[in-house]
């Protein structure tokens, strides 16, 4: 058995797998998710900071 004989089998394997469906929405969700998480974390940190400033401000008054 020669390894080169399996080259066509690999092509066949790829061809079979190229028939699988991966939607654009799925891809966009994958690449957008980390950005969305970063955005939410930044927003949460910002809100906490604002809350602390207001809390300290109110106590000082």
């Amino acid at each position, binding site marked *: *058995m020669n*390894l080169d*004989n*399996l*080259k*066509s*089998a*690999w092509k*066949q*394997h*790829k*061809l079979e*797998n*190229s028939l*699988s469906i*991966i939607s*654009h929405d799925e*891809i*966009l969700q*994958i*690449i957008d998710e*980390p950005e969305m998480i970063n955005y939410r974390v930044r927003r949460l940190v910002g809100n906490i900071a604002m809350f602390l400033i207001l809390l300290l401000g109110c106590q000082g008054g």
Partner: protein
Amino acid sequence: MKFQRMDTSKEFFLQLIANHKGIIKSLCTVYYSKAEDQQDIRQDIILQLWKSLPTFRGESTTSTWVYRVSLNTILSKVRKEQRQPLKESIDSTHENVLTTSYQYDDDLQVLKQLIQSLKAIDKAVIILYLEGYKNKEIAELIQLSSSNVSTRLNRIKTQLKSKFKIYHSELR
């Protein structure tokens, strides 16, 4: 296909994934047997491809770039996880190969059986070899030395031959 100026837009990326989904899915199925694991690694690959896209200068074909990023993402994950199926050696899967020898009905089954019996890096080597890359190119793609790739290929060829001897002796 080669691109002189890389478009990093999402539309371009969607098209790129569509063009190469066969490669991505094939690699996922080669390294992971469970559907949920395949889906996880596919997500990792797509995300890594997206992150790497701005640095792709078009010096290689997009398929080579997809192979490079995908395989390095997988190998990195495998190193971290060290999952059980990937630890299997030729010896430990030998029994499985024999018990499923009736499946050797075509080259595709042979290929699947062979690949499943290999270690993670050897899988990458054989896939790139079957894809038509030269030893030097394989070495560059998965960050090995050329001599290491040659040694691994020779070992895989020997393993393939021994598997077939066993298989044919079982048939007789």
